[in-house]
Every structure is written in C-alpha cells, then in structure tokens.
C-alpha cells in the first residue's frame, strides 16, 4: 500500500513538488503545444550557446573584480557588480556552464543508480525487491534536506558533492518507476517465452526488460531536469553547492539576500534559473507526450473495452405489438449533423441524421462500435464534449431542443429525456449513497422535500424490484451486483418521470440471465409509465426481441431503417445483410458483428462515397462518387444505398 502512493512524490519533496501529468491530458496533443515546445527548445539552445560561447559573450572575467563592490546596473556593468565588484552579467553567462551540465549529470546518475536498483528489484522480485523497496521507503521518509546537508557536511561543499547529495536523494523515484515498468512486463508472455527458449535471466533482463523500462524512465528524467537545476541552486543558496568563486546562480542569489537594497545581485540570477527550469519543464512535458507508454496503454485499454463481448439473445419477452400511430412524434430528429473538435479541425461524426420516436414506442439503434449510436444519445441530452458542433433540428414534445440554453437543457434532462448508460458500475457515483443519487435530482429539478423524495425513491426501487429498498437507500453502489446497479440506474433515470428513455446498451456488461431480467423490466416499465424508449444496441438479438422499429447506423449515417422485424428478416442494405449474413439462420445466437470483413471507418477518414463501400461486396463505381441519398422505400422504411434496388431485383 505504501508503495502505491509514494511514487508520485519524487525527491523534489523538499524543493517543490512536480506532479506527473494527468492521463486525460496525455490523450491528445494540443495543437499549440508544438509552438510552446519549440520555444522551450529555443530557450535551452540559447542557454547552451551562452554556455559554450561564454568566453566570447562575457564582457568581463567572471572571477575578477571589474569595478567597485556592489554597483547598481549601469552602462559599464549592465547588471551591476556583486559583493566583490565582479560583473554580474559575466557571472550569469558563465553560470550556464555550471547549471546546465550539472543538472544533466545529476539526472543521468540518478537514472543510472535508481534505474539499476529498480531493474534489479523488479526483475529478481522476492526478498531483493522487498528489501530494496524498503530502502526507497527509507530514503523517501528521510528528510532530504538533512541527507543532502550531511553529505555535503561530510565531504565539504563542492560541485561534486552537491551532485552526489542530489543523486542520493533523487534515485528512489527512478527506482520505483523502473521497477513498476519491469513488473508490468515481468509476467508477460514474451518473457516467459524467452525463458522457455532457454534465455538466461540476465540476458533476458538486458534483451527484454531493459528496453521496456527505458520509456518511462526517460520521461521521468526529462521531467526531472528542471528540478535538478532548482535543487542545485537551492543547495548553492545554502552554501552547499559548487565552491566559490564559481558563478553558480543559486549562490549568486544568496550574495544579495542579506541586503535588499542591492536588489540587482539577487533578482537577475533568479530569472536565469526561472527561464532554464521553465524550459526544461516544458521540454519534459513534451517528451512525456511523445514517449509515455502509459498513454499508449490507456488507449489500448479503451480499444479493448470497446470490443464488447456479445452474448446469446435473451429469452423472448412479450410479443411486440405495434402501437397506434400518432399524429406528432415524441421525438423528431431531422438533418442532424454533429462534429467533434479534432486535432485538425472539426471531425464530423454524425451526418444528416433523421430519426423519429413516437410516444409509447421502443425504437432501436443498431450498429458497430463507433457508428455514432452513443453520440446520438449524448446529442439528445446536450452532453457532447465541449467544442462539439451540432446542426439540424431536434424536436422533442414540439420543442426545438437545439435552441435551448443551459437552463432549458437542465429542464429537459431527467424530466423529459432520461438516459441509462451502458456500464452500470460507471454510471453511478461510487462515493455517494444510492439514496442520494436517487433523490438529488428529484429535489433539485422538481423541488421535492427530502421526505417526499425519499418516498419516491423507495417507490422507484420497488418498481425496479430491489429488495429491501429502504436499506438499499443507505447503501453505496459497490455493495450491489452489476444487475442490481443497472436496476438502480434505471430507477434513477425514471425518477423524474421522463417521456423518453434512452437506453445505451444497458445490458452489455451484464451476465446473460441478468440481461434478460433487465430487458423485461424495461419493457414493463415502458408500458406502466407511458414511456418511449430509444434503445441502443449492437446486439441484433436484443434488437429483434425488444424494439418495434430499428435504425441501422454506420459511420454516423443511417443505412437503413424500418420496422424491426422487416429490417432484420428482409435486410435491404448490404451492410445490414452483412451484419446478419454471417450466420445461416439469420437470428442465430452465435452471431457476432465482427464477421464483416475489413474494419469500420475511422471518423475523419471516410471514403468520398458510401462509407461502407470499401467493405461492401457489391460496391460499384457510383458508390464512390458521393454518399448515397437516404430514400424512403415504403411508408416506414428508409434506405441509403444505390445498389440495393438492383440487388433486390436480382434476388
């Protein structure tokens, strides 16, 4: 446990902390980031040039008196003179020759020492790991200032000893990072494989483990460079750094610290440190963005998560009965386009969408991952990420939702349109009681009293068949199983009596038998509560058993829509056929969506024509000229395919 939490805190504890960077931030490189990085590199390069060309640039000898003691900045000494009459500008210029290389040396040595120890600890494991990690604990718990001071006290102040001291305080961070990198691949397959192939442990260490821990340690090292400059300056400030008369920046600050009337002695070296550290820090951030393997891992995780397991279809529920057609639909989407902000400008993700839900109806949306199903749902609640652009019309209960302000949306959400999310575990706040999560919107949106809201919550839990509802109100989400949590989520969504419930793959994370229960419940609630449901799924079995009408999505477009039974039994679009076609008997239990050859289209890289064209067995030249128009083929069916009529004819 202790291990877990300490790694975030490197040796910088004493001199100022520096966090690692947020995972969320790593996901996307910011466009202006490059300019900032370039500026950082420019600053560092400038300092490097100053360091190298110091003898040419410095107007005076940095070690020799060049004027009276303590003269303020003047034309003779642009930055004034110090306590010995030395030219401060020249000393700052020569100071770059100390700070920059020493920082690099400190980081390099700490990386070598800590990396080596981490490697050994992680690779050997067992007692070696345990004892080495206890040692890092010890160094972390030991006041770094004392460690550094005793080291310099022991051997006297000098550049070498300051470096030594700083390496001694900073190596554990590297040890931890490298160790965890090693641990993460220690159990991995390819290491086992190399063992089986008879590769000795040390060769395996060098060949397999070492390269894998380079990434994180280089990232850490680059982030630590600026810190090393700061730490060195701090030691020098205390008189424990490079020996006088060396023009060390921190020591120069100290020379002016006791008498503020000689401000120039202290102010300027500080600015030198500040710019250097800032540049190093910016550079470190940039290196992390490039190299951090955890960022890559995070996206891999996401990809993995998206590949959902698909279970057998649930037991059939009530036979579907078509409702009476109504005059005005509850929800009427026309020409809806959504673009999300992307690194290279807006990224269209939903294109020209028409969709309708009538009162009391269950409408399904089907399609592969990334086809825009969930984004459609989020658009209906205005929960798209900031910067998203929405065009088109969304009429709900006769109101134009796209014209709403924040307050208006707040009224629609929950009370007009509610949503059940795909992962029940993620949709409930883990740290708030079920009772609070069931009542807070009742109180905030409908102004209910606490008691009334609780009563309603009990009623809701009863409705979704949670046993002992009163007790459940006091419990936290983690105390329930996944199926129970989804019931709670549904209860929460229904709390404010919405007219439309969006269910975004509400059963995907659940066990098959639980799925069936949830689906049955949804259907029942729809009937009892005068509710319409927009049901999002990639599971055609669920689609057929639950919904009355269905929309088939691909790449943000509706490929085909119509009565569910018709669409599934007589698919007109090659894509729908492909979805269904992998199996001989249509609605078989074993069907998966991955059976379609090729990969789904990546947003922003759609082909100019029909998005399905590259994977379509029937594609023709005209498919490549432009997106196919959506055409109504019968009263309640649409189709976006130029080939389909011919195919139907051919059949």
């Amino acid at each position, binding site marked *: 446990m*202790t291990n877990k939490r*300490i790694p*975030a805190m490197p040796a910088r*504890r*004493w001199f*100022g*902390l520096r*966090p690692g960077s947020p*995972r969320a931030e790593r996901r996307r490189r*910011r466009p202006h980031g490059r300019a900032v990085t370039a500026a950082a590199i420019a600053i560092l390069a400038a300092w490097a040039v100053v360091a190298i060309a110091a003898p040419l640039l410095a107007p005076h000898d940095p070690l020799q008196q060049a004027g009276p003691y303590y003269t303020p900045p003047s034309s003779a000494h642009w930055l004034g003179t110090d306590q010995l009459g030395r030219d401060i500008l020249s000393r700052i210029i020569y100071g770059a020759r100390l700070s920059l290389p020493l920082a690099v040396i400190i980081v390099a040595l700490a990386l070598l020492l800590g990396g080596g120890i981490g490697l050994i600890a992680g690779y050997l494991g067992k007692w070696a790991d345990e004892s080495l990690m*206890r040692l890092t*604990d010890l160094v*972390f*718990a*030991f*006041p770094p200032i004392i460690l550094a*001071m*005793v080291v310099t*006290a*022991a051997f006297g102040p000098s550049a070498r000893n300051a470096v030594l001291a700083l390496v001694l305080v900073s190596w554990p961070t590297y040890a931890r990072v490298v160790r965890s990198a090693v641990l993460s691949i220690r159990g991995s397959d390819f290491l086992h494989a190399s063992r089986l192939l008879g590769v000795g442990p040390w060769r395996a260490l060098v060949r397999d483990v070492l390269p894998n821990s380079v990434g994180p340690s280089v990232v850490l090292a680059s982030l630590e460079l600026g810190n090393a400059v700061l730490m060195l300056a*701090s030691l020098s400030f*205390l008189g424990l750094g490079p020996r006088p008369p060396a023009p060390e920046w921190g020591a120069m600050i100290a020379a002016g610290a006791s008498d*503020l009337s000689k401000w120039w002695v*202290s102010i300027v070296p*500080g600015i030198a440190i500040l710019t250097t*550290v800032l540049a190093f*820090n*910016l550079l470190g951030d940039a290196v992390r963005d490039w190299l951090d393997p955890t960022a890559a891992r995070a996206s891999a995780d996401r990809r993995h998560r998206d590949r959902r397991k698909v279970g057998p279809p649930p037991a059939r529920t009530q036979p579907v009965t078509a409702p009476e057609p109504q005059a005005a639909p509850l929800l009427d989407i026309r020409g809806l386009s959504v673009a999300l902000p992307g690194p290279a400008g807006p990224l269209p993700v939903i294109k020209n969408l028409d969709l309708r839900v009538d009162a009391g109806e269950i409408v399904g949306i089907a399609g592969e991952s990334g086809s825009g199903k969930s984004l459609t749902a989020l658009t209906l*609640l205005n929960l798209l990420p*900031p910067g998203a652009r929405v065009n088109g019309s969304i009429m709900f209960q006769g109101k134009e939702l796209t014209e709403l302000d*924040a307050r208006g949306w707040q009224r*629609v*959400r*929950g009370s007009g349109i*509610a*949503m059940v*999310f795909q*992962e029940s*575990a*993620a*949709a*409930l*706040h*883990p*740290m*708030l009681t079920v009772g609070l999560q069931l009542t*807070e*919107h009742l109180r905030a949106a409908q102004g209910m009293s606490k008691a009334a809201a609780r009563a309603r919550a009990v009623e809701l839990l009863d409705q979704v068949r949670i*046993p002992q509802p009163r*007790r*459940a109100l*006091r*419990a*936290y989400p*983690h*105390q*329930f*199983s996944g199926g129970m*949590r989804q019931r709670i989520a549904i209860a929460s969504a229904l709390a404010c009596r919405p007219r439309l419930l969006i269910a975004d793959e509400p059963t995907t994370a659940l066990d098959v038998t*639980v799925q069936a229960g949830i689906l049955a419940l949804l259907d029942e609630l729809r009937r009892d509560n005068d509710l319409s449901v927009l049901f999002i799924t990639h599971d055609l079995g669920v689609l057929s058993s639950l919904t009355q009408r269905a929309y088939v999505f691909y790449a943000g477009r509706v490929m085909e829509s119509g009565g569910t039974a018709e669409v599934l039994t007589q698919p007109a679009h090659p894509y729908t056929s492909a979805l269904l076609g992998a199996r001989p008997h249509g609605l078989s239990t074993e069907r998966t969506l991955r059976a379609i050859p090729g990969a789904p289209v990546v947003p922003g890289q759609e082909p100019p024509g029909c998005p399905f064209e590259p994977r379509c067995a029937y594609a023709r030249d005209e498919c490549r000229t432009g997106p196919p128009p959506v055409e109504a083929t019968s009263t309640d069916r649409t189709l976006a395919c130029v080939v389909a009529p011919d195919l139907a004819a051919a059949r």
Partner: protein
Amino acid sequence: MTGPHLPAAGPGDLVAAELEPDADATGRPAGGRPAHRLLRFIARKVAITAGLLFGVTILTFLLVQAVPGDPTATNLSETAQKDPSIVAAYRAKWGLDQPLPVQYATYLNNLVHGDLGTSQSTGNPVLHDLGTYIPATMEIAIPAMVLSLLISLGLGMWAATRKDRAADHTIRAGALVGLSTPSFWLAIVVLYVFFFMLDIAPNGGRLSTRYTPPRHVTGMYTVDALLQGRPIAFQDALWHLMLPVLVLTALTVSVLIRFVRSAMLEVLDQQYVRAAYAKGLPRQIVLRRHVLRAGLVQVVTVGGLAFASLLSGTVLIEQIYSWPGIGQYAFSASLNLDLPAIMGVGLFVALVYTVVNLLIDILYGIIDPRIRVS
C-alpha cells in the same frame, strides 16, 4: 481508476439478491472478519512505521559517523580543543568515548524511554527543542496548506471545466511558472517588494519586537495569543505570517493545481458525471457533489504528501524570513554535527511522513466508501 485497492466490500453487502457472478462487482476475496482485517491493517502500519523509524536512526547514525568532523570541534573553543583532558571530559560527557555500537544502543535505549537526548548545540533536550521549533513551522505550514488546497481546488477545477480555453491555459501556464520558480528567490523578491519597496510587510520573524511572545501553550503564536486574549499580539503574529505563508502557498498551489486539474479532468470524463448531468442536475451540484468528491481522492494523496514536505522542507523559506522552524533547526544541527538533534529531526520527519500516509488512508475511507475498512 480512482483510489487504491484496499480491502473492500463491507458487511452490509447486498449482493445476495442476485446471485449471478458479476464481472464488475468489487467482489474480491474477503480476508477474514472485518475486525480482524482492521487489526491486521493497523498492525502492519505500526510495524512499517517502527521499521522505518528504526531505519532512520541507523541511517542518521551512520551518516553522522561518516562525517570527518567531530562534535568537539564545534562545541569546544579552539583553545580547549588543544587540551586533551578537556576533550576527553567532553567526549565522556556525551558518550562519544564509547564504541559505536554501544553509543547506538544507548541512544536506542533512551529513545524507547522517550528520551531523544540533549542537543549539543543548544544545550536543551531535543524533545524540548522540537517542541519549540515544530509549532513555528506548523504555524506557517498549516495555513499555507489550507489555502493551497482551497485555491488549487478552485483553480484546478475551473481549469478542468474550461479545458483548452483561455482560463485553462492561463492557470496551467501560471502553475508551470510557479513550479519553475526557485522558492528562495521568490521569497526574496516578495520580501523586496512587500517590505523594502511597499513597506507593508514585516522583515521576517514571528512577532514585532515590541510585543512579548504569548506564553507557550501550543507554541503557535497566533493560537496562543488568541487563547490568552491578546488580540493585538494575534494581529501582529498574523501579519508576520503573511509573507512566508504567501510564498509557501504560491509554491504549493503550483504543484497541486496540476494534480487537481488532471484528477478533475479524469473525473469529468467519467460516465457518472455524464449520468449526473443526464439526470437534470444543475451544473453547480454536479461539480460540487459529484466531481469534487471523486477528484478529492487523488488530491488528498498529493496534498498529504505536500503537507509532509512543507513540514520538513521549508528551510529555505524559514531562513529568508528568519523563522525559527524545524528546517532551520535541522540545518544548524547538520552544520554543527549535532547528532541528537539531527536524529530528532529525522525521526520527526519520518513520523510525519508515515502518519500522513496513514491519514491519507483514513481519508480515503471517509471519501470513498468502497475502501472503508470497517
């Protein structure tokens, strides 16, 4: 991922209603009855702390022995050092004539009996010295920490909700500059501006010379002055806190903001935040109740450790503001090779470190019910 994995699933488990195995449930194998787990948890913590403290004493002892100098050099006059009988008497008095293992064993024995020894450079029992210097550091560290948490939570959250917009960029740039600023330099600049140029801040120290320090109760002048009903002294002590707290806060905020922002970004990205909005909750409630609460788990960790480092790591600030805190004490002890004092500070810092870690664990439990131990 929020928070660490601690033994989960409390006694009020309601899973029984649906018996299916569930991939998402936090059903990890229960480790015995909860009371036992709690005891084991505490026992483990205590064992780790004791081991750590023991390690600190050995490390300090060895480090100080490695120093070529000798306490007689700094504690006797140059003339007296030339007199072998005086040197011998000094060494006998401080036990320096004993073999190292004996010296160490004596120290440990005294330590176990609550005696940290006597500082050779102040002539006081180390415990007494710590009692004087620690409250002084606390007096600047606690307000700085509280302010830092408030400011960084506010700004960090603001930046997270305005991601990639002007406010976000400004806050992040500010934090980065703060991180890149040498603390001691900032302290000098602030002193120069507020004391030297504007003359609205004191020049350092804990209290103006015309006031008598309040009697030692907590050792924190502001608190003691209030307890003793001395509003003017309180005001003056507060005034003296201003600059060191300002500087420490600025530096700590720079550190915390990044953590807060990234924690909040991660939380804002969570399904349950979207779900909270989807329920029709006003933004204020979502941010305050849902986002802040979840983000706190991560912020608490770094905040706790930042506090631990504030307590042990303010030596530079203390020096510039003439603040007689623990950092100054450690610094002079190191220079004087005052072994008992160095030991005392080392033990104190290690203890703070482990206690803070323990408090973080407890706070996790308060914030996140999933990891409540009992």
